[in-house]
């Protein structure tokens, strides 16, 4: 920053919610043309800081400065007008609206109060071009586009504004491969235009590659800040969690010989391919790799009985399982979905109720809930999984992402499943909690549970799996045993560029 006044600076931000101090004197300063990474565990206060910087929330104490002048945003509109734009972690693309309308959302161009469609198209086209979506049909509904395109539309929307500070809140959390690269390209070019970028990510390698500066948040405070060169990944992790996390991936125990689930000629609904043959052993951990939309999730869901089959058979413990969610659950095949807030939890229920949601019959006697048994169940799972909640009565919606994920896991573990299916088990979860979940998966496998997980995070796939299936265009195109697993090979298969399979 070489002494120049930073474009955006926050000093000593404090924000308190009833019972929680989300920010406790956090500061950050970002100069023009720089990419400033903001990292920290979930619940460290990153999102709250973004919400304050963008006027969505007002700080209890501390100040925000723009070009050295103290500003006080009354709402997002004022922040946007001042040139502070954010692209949020949760997509704010409106599915029912066209690409054009989505890019122009909140910044309509009008002439004498009437929409100026020519100008709108021009602006949108230009912004989309800057994110590499130059040839997309402006009239298409956003819901018809891929997740990656929608993420890019969000960025285009920000670029169409007179933006001086661009805040990107985990823009790559849902992306992989080329899509990820294209975002990186966009970020670099935006910074090169002299815009200050605040970049939030859990992918620390990405941060190393992209950022000029980094600020680490922990417990609502900025514990460390400096040029990225001074930080390697282990150091960032150390600062984030306040301790060393040496070995993220413990060594796997060899799996058993018993076949828990066998799949023969399985074709998910809408699939006209040759069908999948596959055996899953007790204690085995299988990773499903592939690009977004490659059919990973669909395959996982077909295992879980959700979505129907075009053909094929699944047997668990030698007994055939009909298609259907309930049949699968009864057979001990359960799915921890990617969208835990949408598909995993009733956020308005207390934690104890979500823990017992799938095994409600187990804590009821003849339909009557046994409160004490339920509390005991909660305590058991809290200990086993290290759920951090204020108590069994806390509303699940108030927990952090990692803890919510643990509650979903707990919900299924109480049904004593034989096959645990996980879709993006650590998406949006911080490093500390990730390690805990990896350890847990290993432990469950060691106890004889079979695990299949799908993930976009290659490190995760490589580190955790004993076997990897690679999907492309809805089919399993490659199988790799642990000793053959390497990231490059997986990518080749996923893109269909290598000689493999």
């Amino acid at each position, binding site marked *: 920053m070489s002494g120049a006044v930073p474009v955006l600076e926050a000093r000593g931000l404090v924000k308190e*919610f*009833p*019972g*929680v101090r*989300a920010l406790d004197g956090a500061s950050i300063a970002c100069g023009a043309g720089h990419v400033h990474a903001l990292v920290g565990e979930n619940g460290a206060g990153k999102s*709250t800081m973004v*919400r304050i910087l963008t006027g969505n*929330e007002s700080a209890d104490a501390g100040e925000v400065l723009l070009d050295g002048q103290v500003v006080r945003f009354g709402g997002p509109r004022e922040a946007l007008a001042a040139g502070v734009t954010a692209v949020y972690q949760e997509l704010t693309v409106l599915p029912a609206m066209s690409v054009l309308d989505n890019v122009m959302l909140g910044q309509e161009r009008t002439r004498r109060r009437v929409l100026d469609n020519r100008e709108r198209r021009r602006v949108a086209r230009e912004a989309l071009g800057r994110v590499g979506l130059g040839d997309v049909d402006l009239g298409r509904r956003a819901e018809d586009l891929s997740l990656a395109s929608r993420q890019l539309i969000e960025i285009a929307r920000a670029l169409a504004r007179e933006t001086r500070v661009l805040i990107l809140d985990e823009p790559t959390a849902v992306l992989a491969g080329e899509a990820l690269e294209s975002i990186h390209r966009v970020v670099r070019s935006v910074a090169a235009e002299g815009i200050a970028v605040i970049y939030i990510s859990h992918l620390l390698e990405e941060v190393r590659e992209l950022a000029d500066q980094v600020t680490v948040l922990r417990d609502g405070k900025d514990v460390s800040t400096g040029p990225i060169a001074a930080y390697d990944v282990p150091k960032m992790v150390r600062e984030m969690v306040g301790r060393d996390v040496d070995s993220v991936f413990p060594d796997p125990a060899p799996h058993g010989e018993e076949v828990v689930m066998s799949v023969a000629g399985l074709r998910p609904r809408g699939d006209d391919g040759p069908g999948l043959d596959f055996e899953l052993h007790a204690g085995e951990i299988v990773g499903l790799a592939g690009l977004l939309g490659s059919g990973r999730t669909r395959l996982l869901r077909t295992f879980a009985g*959700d979505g129907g089959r075009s053909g094929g058979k699944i047997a668990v413990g030698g007994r055939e399982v009909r298609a259907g*969610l*309930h049949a699968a*659950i009864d057979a001990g095949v359960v*799915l921890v*979905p990617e969208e835990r807030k*949408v*598909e*995993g*939890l*009733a*956020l*308005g*229920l207390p934690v104890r*109720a979500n823990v*017992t*949601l*799938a095994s*409600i*019959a187990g*804590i*009821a006697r003849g*339909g*009557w*809930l046994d409160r004490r048994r339920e509390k005991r169940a909660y305590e058991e799972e809290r200990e086993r999984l290290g759920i951090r909640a*204020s*108590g069994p*009565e*806390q*509303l699940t*919606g*108030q927990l952090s992402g990692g803890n919510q994920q643990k509650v979903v896991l707990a*919900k299924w573990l109480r*049904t004593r499943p034989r096959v645990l299916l996980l879709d993006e088990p650590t998406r949006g979860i911080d490093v500390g909690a990730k390690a805990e979940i990896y350890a847990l998966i290993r432990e469950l496998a060691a106890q004889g549970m079979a695990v299949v997980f799908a993930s976009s995070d290659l490190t995760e796939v490589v580190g955790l799996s004993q076997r990897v299936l690679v999907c492309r265009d809805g089919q399993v195109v490659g199988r790799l045993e642990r000793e053959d697993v390497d990231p490059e090979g997986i990518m080749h298969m996923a893109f269909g560029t290598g000689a493999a399979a």
Partner: protein
Amino acid sequence: MNRAGALASDFGARVAPLAGLVIVLIAAAITSPSLFESSNLRLILFQIGLIGITALGQTLVLLVAGIDLSVGAVIGLTAVIVAAHTDGSDGALPVAILLAAAAGAGVGLLNALLVIVRGVPPFVATFASFVLVEGVITAVTRGAPSGSIPSGLHTLGADRVAGIPVPLLVFAVLALVVGVILARTSAGRRLYATGLNPRAAAMSGIRTPLVVASAYVACALFAVLAGLVDAGYIGYVDAQLSRELNLESIAAAVIGGVALTGGEGTVGQTVCGVLLLAVLLVWMVELGTGVGGQLAVEGAVILGAVWLQRQTLSQKRSVKG
């Protein structure tokens, strides 16, 4: 949020309708002391019973993020069926009640089918079945319901036990039963989970279509019971009443604090709302404000009650950030 905070705001949400009730009671006591004479009190108690029974059913439907506008039609249907089948004879009553219950359950099932299978918004689905059921009644009775209500139903609608109207007792028992089911059984838990997040509930192995259907059928059956109570209360087929109970049952639950978005609300809150509404209705008649004043005050109280809840709720919500 810590536990004490959660409890406090929960307490607040619960207290809001109670506070409203107390305010109305005090205002009523000041403006028209005669409201608390025995005959008026009995009337209030009866109103609590009649509105309450329908409001309980409505609560179940609201908890699964639905709404039932066909309640009134089912009440009318019940009276018509009982009158036509028994024509005043007590002997035929049991069968008539079964017929009415079957018809009511049929309407509930129709609602459920439209909502679950076809995904029609509950508001429209139940409005459509309201029109349809009223249509069936008119088509079959040709506008003039035949037969009469057997005197046996009088016990249910107009008798008193120890000075307390039977409908109130029925309501009290039902409220207790529904309250316990919601709070203490796995069925109740499934209902809340389904209302809060149907997708997550289904993914957790809960048969959500069954849960939703049960709520609609139960609501219709409560309406049948309300129809029997009403028929017993007056001893005649009342073709006019039905429309009002639609709105009143919803209003009672909503005043109490049951959310229209599903999964939020308890029977206790509904009971509070019912008490408030029943007192209000009788008080307005007692005041003699005229129909205009009655409607205006009713509207204002609904607004006030929800406003009060909003104040306590806004604290609770802000935690999410």
